[in-house]
Every structure is written in structure tokens, then in C-alpha cells.
């Protein structure tokens, strides 16, 4: 049977702590594996922080579902269109003096999510993120996520 939880947030910095506590409680209640829970926690924070701090959103709706051995997170916000799947990302590189830090948050998301999908629904952005709980291959699937637009 699937387990699910939902949370509605104002799109503000202060609400990010509540968002984190909400997911931590879900992960604990359903005994999610430690590494998977940590990665989903990171993705959720990065995506929610992007919306709350950089977009024009006023509201964020979150849903987490645990079913068929995977965690599915859905994030809906009322900001202007923004597709985190195709946004440019980059790790740090080069010497410390030159290191720049743009796009790092979404880089972390792309590297830890198994599937990341985006669609615009009316006045809302909808992002869906899947993290499988079993073993996975090294080529996890940012690529798969990039093609999963529906």
C-alpha cells in the first residue's frame, strides 16, 4: 500500500525549515534507507529553495509518495515558468580562486535523482522527482529524467 503526505508552504526562506522537518518525519515514519533519504532530502531542499528564494512564487505544494520501492516527490508552485530539468548546472572545477558556484544546487539534484521531470500546468510549475530505493547502476538517470517530460 502506498504511503503519502502533503504539505503546503508559503514561498519564503523561513518555510524551508518546515519543509525539511516534514520530509524528515516522513522518512523516519517509513524507515527509508539512510542514503536514499539523505539524497531526497537534499533534492527537496534545493528545489524548494530555488522556488522560494529565486522565483516569483507565493505558494508551494509538496507531496511525497512511497510506492513500489521508490519515493516520488511532486512540487507545485505558482511562479513564472521554470524548468529545472533543462536548466544549466555545473560542479566546481579549476583552482579555488576561480571557482564559481552558479547552478550547483540543480547539479546536486540531477546527480542524485533517478528521474526528474517538469511540466507547466496552467499557471503552475510541476516538478516530479523519483528516487528508487533499491540498488542502482552508476549511470543513474539524469538522462532518463531529461527525456521524461510527461
Amino acid at each position: 500500500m502506498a504511503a503519502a503526505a502533503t504539505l503546503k508552504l508559503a514561498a519564503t526562506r523561513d518555510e524551508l525549515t518546515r519543509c525539511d522537518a516534514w520530509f524528515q518525519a516522513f522518512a523516519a515514519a517509513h524507515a527509508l534507507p539512510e542514503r536514499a533519504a539523505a539524497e531526497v532530502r537534499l533534492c527537496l531542499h534545493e528545489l524548494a529553495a530555488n522556488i522560494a528564494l529565486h522565483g516569483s512564487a507565493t505558494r508551494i505544494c509538496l507531496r511525497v509518495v512511497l510506492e513500489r520501492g521508490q519515493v516520488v516527490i511532486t512540487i507545485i508552485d505558482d511562479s513564472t515558468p521554470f524548468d529545472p530539468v533543462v536548466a544549466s548546472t555545473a560542479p566546481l572545477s579549476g583552482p579555488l580562486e576561480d571557482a564559481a558556484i552558479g547552478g550547483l544546487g540543480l547539479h546536486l539534484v540531477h546527480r542524485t535523482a533517478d528521474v526528474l521531470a517538469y511540466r507547466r500546468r496552467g499557471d503552475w510549475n510541476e516538478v516530479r522527482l523519483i528516487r528508487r530505493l533499491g540498488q542502482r547502476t552508476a549511470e543513474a538517470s539524469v538522462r532518463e529524467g531529461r527525456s521524461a517530460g510527461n
Partner: protein
Amino acid sequence: MSEIVLTPPYRLDSATAPGFEATSLANIAGSERALIDFSAVDFVSSAGLRGILMVAKRLRSKGGRLAVCGLRPAVAEVFAISGFSAILDIHPTRDQALAALRQ
């Protein structure tokens, strides 16, 4: 001259990183060597990484050095994926990091 030891909050994320960055930059103002001890840190996001990078750059700009230690597995993974593992001086324990800074 002694090293400055910085201890980030339990969650170093978008909510707490701006405060950590400001406090850290103030604390290292008179120092050329600093250690960030992560042993009590449960979570680091990209905003936290940004604060760490600012501290590292400030020290480097005045010929100083930064070491970090005590990364829990989830934090170490974020450092690895982000590329921070390649540009920071990372040690398992505070003693090892301090020894490296004093060399």
C-alpha cells in the same frame, strides 16, 4: 598564530548559511588559518557550500589556508558530487586537520 575553528550549525542550508557565512568571515578577519569542523553537521546544501567557498576564497586571497574535517557520509557525498572534494583540504578528524594546517 593559532587557527580559527568554525563549527557550522546542524543544518547548513538556505535558512542558516547566510548567518554562518557572515559570522565565519568576521571570525577569520584576523587569521590566516582556519578549520571547519563538520562533525556536528547533519546536512549541507548548495547554499552551505557557497558559504564554505566564500571562507576558503577569503583565506586564499590573503595567503592563508583552510582545512575541513568530520564529514558524515551524507555530507561527504555532497562534497564529492559538488566538486568540493577536489579543491578543499579534507581530513577525517580535527587533530589531523590541525596538524596539516600547522605544517
